[in-house]
């Protein structure tokens, strides 16, 4: 009986991640009692909202066996668009600005999807090229200027208000929750979700069974772009400023979040829960290190070591599991 429960826990990647998260939080709570307060947790969620939302998009991209390192450039481009529209007093409506940002992101993502799916360019190369292109475009739109708090007017209040959350939860957190719920439902219960998993697990089999792999790939990159666009507008609201070098270099954080969450980089494996837990673990680590007294200069090394440890642990656990399974067969 015990063996079965243990097997279930270690078998499910998500469950073991959850355990890790709980242990981490408890340990940090001991060091710094202010960690698990509601305010502290909500603050952490708000600051990591962008990474968490983009992890969802990256999950889908990784699931089909691709990768997208241009996400922060798309984010910067849509964020700058919003910033410039506000700065030059062209548009002020918050909802409209969000829609425009999502649209810009969708177009960026669709172009990438087209190049990858139809142009048959390898995702790492295509997205590397577009990373340069979109970032450059962001600078060009900005004409090398920033949009600061003054220019943003009422838009930046979006990150402070609680309208969407019925007065209880911050808007940003509500958006994160909504995104996760939507994606969870889609990936688990709809046909499109199943198709994405299929294309990633075995592209040939998927094509042969009638799934239009090209269209799914296009969809996946467009989704990623849309989420990146949404995050662009969100980042501008949260940080009250729009500048072309927003989130430069942070795409690796998003990929790391997914990998820690158990998403396989060769496609076909990974869940929304995994992406959530992965990004939460990264967020907790980032927030907790200074609280535990680890000098901020050591942070990056610790982050890298943890990622390495997690993926090695993955492999070791998997090998142990395979051995277990083999033993079971050798009846």
């Amino acid at each position, binding site marked *: 009986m015990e063996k079965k429960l243990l097997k279930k826990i270690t078998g499910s990647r998500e469950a073991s991640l959850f355990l890790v998260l709980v242990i981490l939080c408890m340990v940090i709570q001991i060091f710094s009692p*202010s960690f698990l307060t509601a305010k502290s947790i909500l603050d952490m969620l708000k*600051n990591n909202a962008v990474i968490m939302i983009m992890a969802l998009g990256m999950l889908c991209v990784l699931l089909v066996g691709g990768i997208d390192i241009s996400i922060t450039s798309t984010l910067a481009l849509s964020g700058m668009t919003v910033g410039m529209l506000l700065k030059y007093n062209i548009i002020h409506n918050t909802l409209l600005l969000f829609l425009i940002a999502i649209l810009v992101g969708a177009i960026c993502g669709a172009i990438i999807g087209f190049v990858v799916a139809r142009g048959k360019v390898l995702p790492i190369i295509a997205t590397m090229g577009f990373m340069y292109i979109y970032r450059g475009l962001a*600078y060009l739109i*900005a004409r090398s*200027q920033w949009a*600061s*708090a003054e220019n943003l007017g009422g838009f930046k209040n979006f990150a402070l208000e609680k309208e969407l959350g019925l007065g209880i939860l911050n808007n940003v957190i509500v958006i994160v929750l909504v995104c996760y719920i939507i994606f969870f439902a889609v990936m688990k219960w709809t046909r499109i979700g199943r198709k994405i998993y299929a294309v990633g697990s075995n592209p040939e089999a998927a094509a042969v069974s009638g799934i239009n792999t090209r269209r799914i790939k296009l969809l996946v990159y467009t989704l990623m772009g849309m989420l990146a666009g949404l995050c662009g507008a969100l980042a501008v609201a949260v*940080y009250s400023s729009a500048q*072309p070098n927003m989130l430069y270099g942070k795409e690796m954080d998003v990929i790391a979040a997914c990998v820690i969450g158990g998403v396989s980089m060769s496609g076909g494996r990974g869940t929304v829960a995994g992406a959530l837990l992965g990004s939460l673990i990264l967020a907790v680590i980032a927030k907790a290190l200074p609280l535990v007294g680890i000098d*901020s200069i050591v942070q990056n090394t610790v982050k890298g070591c943890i990622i390495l440890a997690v993926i090695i642990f993955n492999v070791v656990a998997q090998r142990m599991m395979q051995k277990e399974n083999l033993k079971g067969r050798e009846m």
Partner: protein
Amino acid sequence: MRKQLVYAFLCTAAISGILAGCSSKSSTTESPASPQKTEAVSKDGAGTGGAAGKTFAIVTKAAGNPYNEKMAQGFQKVIEAEGGTCIIKHPESATADAQVSVIQSLISQGVDALCIAGNDENALQAALEEAMAAGIKVSCLDSKVNKDSRQTFVNQAGTTEIGQALMDAVYDISGGEGDWAILSATSQATNQNAWIEAMKEVMKESKYSKLNLVEVAYGDDEPQKSTDQTQALLSKYPDLKVICAPTTVGINAAAKVLQDEKSKVKLTGLGLPSEMAEYIGNDDAHSCPYMYLWNPIDVGSLGAYTSIALVDGSITGKTGDKFAAGEMGDYEVIGASDGGTEIILGPPFKFDSSNIDEWKSVY
């Protein structure tokens, strides 16, 4: 054979695209913030034309930062008024590495003078020595490079004066005792390190003995990172009283965090009035009682006049040289603390609730 022709055609197409891109880029973007060669526009009565026919270049720390933009604007306005050609160069990234490539490119272009805001005090020495050997007059502004890499340094305000002003502000706002922290830019920026050192020197006096500097955090002049660092400071040090941010990006981010969270922690430092207008005030609702800065446009202008004076020979950058800086008056080159020389623009200027509305539209 046909494939070869197709490839050749594609190459030609790509190259003509680049050619077209070059020419269209040079003509369409005419905002002062774009880095291209702008032709001389001599204005009557605005200058003595001492720069006629010469090319002057300014190299900023990074692209996009409003402070850098205004500095470059000031530089360009003076150069063009004096009849010279101005090149504004932004490095590809906010690193000394990228600035080396810029400097080398300017040497190749044969500019007459180069004025640079260094991303690192020492890393540019090799490139700048090569520039000086090629006959280019090298000066720096805003963020200096070491004494062997420059002929002189246009300092926006005396380093000790800035340190004193900021330290006094911290003393005043905190009530004379308590924890305080610094939120800086990048860990290599010369000006940041100089001002932090100056503050620490001032703090050695017994008057400040009850103030406790708990941490120097680095926001890398990025709003996100500065925001994260501010929040980290708030959660790490519950008894924090004052944050001093001697960088316009840092103070902006910190002001927003403090004001949004209605924190008791107060803020001071160096900030652009246009960005900080809504955060300056004496009551609880505003996070920053007062702050300091100087006019970055003037820094750029003085840099321009210095370059012109170096090129036409009226100064060589040694102590005691005097020159005229147009309507800004006369300036003298004095000795700097690192063994080289510097030119000081003036004392730091205090912004508080009484004058912020007047200045927020100027810069």
